[in-house]
Every structure is written in structure tokens, then in C-alpha cells.
């Protein structure tokens, strides 16, 4: 029982940074912009949030700093991709490399010094329910933010006019432009949101998950978030499923190793990636779903008036 609870809570917490980054990227990609710089932006958010937390400010301030840092770095990407019409793949990768190097440079002074770990949010009554309380109500605040955010984004994309406009712009920016929607500003907003979320995901890793700064601490989670968005056919619920699946299989394989169950560690370490790709590909194999959800103008530069 103890182990089952540990697996569930571990999964939820492991999925949180992925969820932040992937939801942000989902919004950006739905508007037609492919931001490959998620990993770098997560790292910048992480190092900034760690700086602020190390200086003694509370969690919310540090997380906010991470958000702003992520948004700022995505602004650079926005200028490159939306104003200068640079190749989005190259610009995104450039941001990843920049983020990695810049965060390493800014993070050098910390050495291995930790900050105080974030306390779980104790909800009166609810947190104390014997098993369910720990599974549902015993997390730090950012975990709740991630799941609430998922709900908000889903609702925004599919139930509001703003979301409709965003998806139209991602589908056919020329038509949207002709109707009168401002394509570039809206795409900017989407990109900034994506960067902010990536920054928040990174901030979560550095201040709540493992309260230390370590160079390259995202260890590829930004890339995983990118892959999740694609394999989930740009549908928020599937992105959530993918994040939970990935986080969950990761935790499971560690438990399995500890119990001596299953094949050797190398295979088990690859399992989260294999399982997530397999599941998402299987559930998204309906070509109609793919066509309906794929933002047709993804990664194509938009030149108003052409």
C-alpha cells in the first residue's frame, strides 16, 4: 500500500514539469509556431527561480521569476521567428543551446548548495483522509497549479472565442489575416505563454522537485514535452495522459528495479520513452483526428499580404 501510494504521488509530481512545458508548447503550436527551444527556456526559468529562491524570497515569487525569465527568452525566439521570419526549427534550437549555456553560466556560483525544500500544501480535513488524502491532497502548490492550468487551457482552446481564433490562426493564418485577426500579435502572445510555461516547468524542477541547481538539470524533459505535444495530436487531454504516462512509467521502472523485478536497468530506463510513444501513437492513429488537430501552418513563417 505504501508502495502504491508512493508510485501514485511520485507520478503526479514527476508529470508536473512536463505538463507545464507541454501545455505551453501546445498553445504555441496551435497558433502555428513551432518552438523547439523549450529545453533551453526551462533551464533559464530554473536558474532564475533558483536565484530568487536562494536569495530568500518565497516560492510564489521565485516561480513568478521563472515565468518571467521563460517569457523573456521566448521573446527572443518570437522576434526571430515572427518578425525576422527566420527558420523556426533553427531559431528554436538556437534558443535551446543559448538557454543551456546561459543557465550553466548563471548557475555556477551555487555549487551544490540546496535551498529549503518546498512544503506540501496542507489542506485542512482533506489532506488527512487516510489514503485518498495523500494521493489527492498532499502536494505542493505548483502541482495543483499545473492541473488547474491544464483545465483552463482545455477550456480556453475549445470553449472560448479566443481559443477558436488561436486555432484558426494556426490552421490558416492568411484567411485569419484577411478576416481581420491580428496574426502576429496573437502568435506572439501564444509564444510568450509557451515560454512562460516552460520557465515555470523549469522553476518547478529547481525549487520544488530537487531543491538544488545542477547544470542541465532538466535532463531532456523539454524535448520530451515537445514530443508529447506531437504524439498527442495537439489535444490537451492526450498531452496530460502522455505526461502522466511518462512520469508514471519512470517511477514504476525505478520501483521495479528496486524490487528486482523485470529486465535489466538499461531496458527499464528506456521504457518510459518507448511506452509513451507507443501509447500515444496508437491512440492517435486515426488519420481524421490527426488531420483535424494538426495546425496546418505549423512552423511556416507568415508574411502578411502574400
Amino acid at each position, binding site marked *: 500500500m*505504501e*508502495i502504491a*501510494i*508512493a*508510485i501514485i504521488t*511520485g507520478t503526479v509530481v*514527476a508529470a508536473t514539469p512536463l505538463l507545464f512545458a507541454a501545455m505551453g508548447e501546445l498553445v504555441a503550436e496551435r497558433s502555428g509556431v513551432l518552438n523547439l527551444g523549450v529545453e533551453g527556456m526551462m533551464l533559464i526559468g530554473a536558474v532564475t527561480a533558483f536565484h530568487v529562491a536562494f536569495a530568500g524570497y518565497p516560492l510564489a515569487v521565485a516561480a513568478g521569476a521563472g515565468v518571467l525569465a521563460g517569457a523573456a527568452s521566448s521573446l527572443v525566439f518570437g522576434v526571430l521567428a515572427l518578425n525576422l521570419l527566420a527558420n523556426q526549427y533553427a531559431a528554436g534550437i538556437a534558443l535551446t543551446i543559448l538557454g543551456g549555456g546561459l543557465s*550553466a553560466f548563471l548557475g555556477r556560483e551555487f*555549487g*551544490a*548548495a*540546496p535551498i529549503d*525544500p518546498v512544503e506540501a500544501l496542507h489542506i485542512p480535513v482533506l489532506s488527512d483522509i487516510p489514503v485518498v488524502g495523500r494521493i489527492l491532497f498532499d502536494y505542493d502548490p505548483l502541482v495543483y497549479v499545473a492541473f488547474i492550468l491544464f483545465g483552463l487551457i482545455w477550456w480556453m482552446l475549445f470553449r472560448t472565442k479566443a481559443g477558436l481564433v488561436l486555432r484558426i490562426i494556426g490552421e490558416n493564418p492568411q484567411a485569419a489575416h484577411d478576416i481581420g485577426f491580428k496574426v502576429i500579435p496573437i502568435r506572439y502572445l501564444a509564444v510568450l505563454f509557451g515560454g512562460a510555461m516552460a520557465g515555470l516547468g523549469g522553476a518547478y*524542477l529547481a525549487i520544488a*522537485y*530537487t*531543491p*538544488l541547481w*545542477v*547544470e*542541465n*538539470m532538466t*535532463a531532456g524533459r523539454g524535448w520530451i514535452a515537445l514530443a508529447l505535444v506531437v504524439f498527442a495530436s495537439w489535444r490537451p487531454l492526450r498531452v496530460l495522459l502522455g505526461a502522466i504516462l511518462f512520469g508514471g512509467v*519512470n*517511477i514504476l521502472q*525505478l*520501483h521495479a*528495479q*528496486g*524490487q*528486482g*523485478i*523485470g*529486465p*535489466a*536497468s*538499461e*531496458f527499464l*530506463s528506456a521504457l518510459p520513452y518507448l511506452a509513451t510513444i507507443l501509447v500515444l501513437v496508437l491512440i492517435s492513429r486515426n488519420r481524421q483526428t490527426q488531420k483535424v488537430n494538426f495546425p496546418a501552418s505549423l512552423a511556416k513563417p507568415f508574411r502578411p499580404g502574400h
Partner: protein
Amino acid sequence: MARNISRREALKYSAATGAMATGLAGVPRLVAAADPLKVGIVYVSPISEIGWTKQHSLGAEAIADTFGERASITAIDNVWDPQAGERVFAELASTGHGLVFGTSFSHSTPIQKTAPRFPDVAFEHCSGLKHSRNLGTFEAKYYEGTYLAGIAGGHVTESKKLGFIGGFPIPDIVGPGNAMLLGAQSVDPSITCSVIFLNSWFDPAKEKEATAALVAQGCDVICSMTDTATGVQVAEQNGAWSIGYASDMRQFGPTKNLTSFMLDWTSVYVGAARDVLDGTWTSKVRWQGVKEGVVTMSPYNDQLPAGVIDQLTVAEAAIKDGSLHPYRGELRDQQGNVRVAEGSRLSDPDIRGFNWFVEGMVGNLEG
């Protein structure tokens, strides 16, 4: 009458002369006495306050302190993938560095490919398995440290379950894991140890998940043989004892850190630099432990009873003088087969190639 030398002959003779000159060159010479010895050091992970790379950087500092103006250090960190490694080693060797260190098992292929190309440069490889004319290796007997730590763990564990987190399932990690359990089993033979491999040297989030998983499974002494202090930190948060690796990690586990088995490479670094400066460097295979001072134990947790600390001191002295060997028989594997008979010990090649778990280890190495 001068004979026109054909191009083919010219190439042939120059190759022969070159080969002869290389052969005559012998071991790497020191550079002109006035120039400082350029020492290149390649670290596998970022230089940090504690951990594997930190301990190697202390070796670099020791060279700087000992030789002052006579040596200059070039350090490059975070080189862990073989392709980048090859480029880095070649660059160091071709820019006048007379002594180049590789500090990880992951540097094996790059350094082994680069060394023959630069026969005048002395290469030293930590955790390497192959040496050549200008490539020496140095390694530590981690298992001596983990055995001692295991004895301490055996005395404090209440659940009789230890946890071991390793970077990769290589012999130099598998062996020490086994040794830790053997040390604990010398206190109580019923103790078991669960093992998790992260398949990364440096993923603190995964290390935290792994530590949490082990604690959830009931392990109350966790040893994390990776490059960060996350294991010690998370163990402390969860109320489990911890054993640190490479550096003193008491600051990360102020109440429940039992000890750390630390690495002190300064004698190797200073010795190699001295040999190159004196022109007497030759390729050596070093495998050193408690006796040579390469493996040391950080001060034991003061919650350990005095009797236990005395036992540990005695055991350490016994390992030093050779009367106690962590891998002495009888050793059985997970299937119960006797691999080492009573009265003998695991041979050195078998220790270097340790790829099986002893009885009591919970984990799977086969595919």
C-alpha cells in the same frame, strides 16, 4: 651523380625516418625547463562543490599548489559524450599540453583513440581499463570504502533493508554495491539490499525519485553512488540513513548521514605531474584504496555507539594491512551458487570485471 628521388621513394624514406624518430623518442619528454608544464584535465560533469568531479578538481588544485609556476592547468568540464571527448582530448594534446587527464569511464574510447596519435603526451585515465605506452590508468578500490560504510549501515538498519543507487551498471559500481551489502552482512547475514541504476551520472530529479522509491520499499540506509548529493538529501528528508560518495556530504544530511567514502586523488595527480616534469613518466596501472589514502572515510555519525566506531576503526586498519578483504569467501550469487570458496577471495581480474550480484542483492543485471 645525383639521382632524382621519385615521389614514392621520398614518401617511403620520410615515413621510415619518421617511424624511427618516433621509436627513438621513447616516453614523453619534458618540455624545455623554462616553459611551464601544461596540464589538461577533462571532467565528465560540471565542477561542483561536491562529488566525483570535485574530488578530481582537488587533484588539479594540488598540482597548482605543489608546482606553482612550473605547471599551468587547463580544465574542461561537462564532457561526457565520446564524440565531444575525442575532440577535446585531441585539442588538448595538440596545443602543447604535456599531461592530459581523463576522469571517467565514459572517457575510455576517446582517450584510447587519442593517445596513440600523440605519443609525446602523457595521458592518465581514471577508471580506464586499458593502458598503453603513453596511457596510464588509475582507479580506486571503492569497495573498501563501501564495505566499511556497510558495516556502519548494518548496525543501524532496523528494516534490514539497504538501498543502493548507482549511475551505470558497470563493474566499478556493481562491485562496491556488493561490498556494501557484504559489510552489512558481516553484522547480520539476513540484511538485503535493493539496487536501482539511473543510467545517468547526473540526473538529480531521477535520483530523488529513485531514493523515494527505495524508502517507500522499506530501505532505511541509502547509498547513492552518483555525482550529486541528492540521494543524501532526499534520504534525510525521508528519515533514512545515508551514505555519501566521493566527498563529505554531511552538510546535506546533517542528522542521518552515516559517513561518506571519499576519494583523494591528489597523490596521483601530483605524482604524475612530478614524473612528467622530471622526465621519468611511464605508463602505470594504479589501483589504490584505503592503504594508499586514496579512499578515506568521512567522520562517522556521532549517533553511532562508540563500540561500533571502534569496530569500524579496527576494520579499516585490517583492510589497510591486508588481513581483511571485503571479497573474501564464501561468496554466493543470487542463484545461490558458490562463486568464491571459503578461505579464498575474489581474484583481482574478477573484481575489476564484477558483473554479478551477491546473495541478498535485490536487482537484475541480466537483460
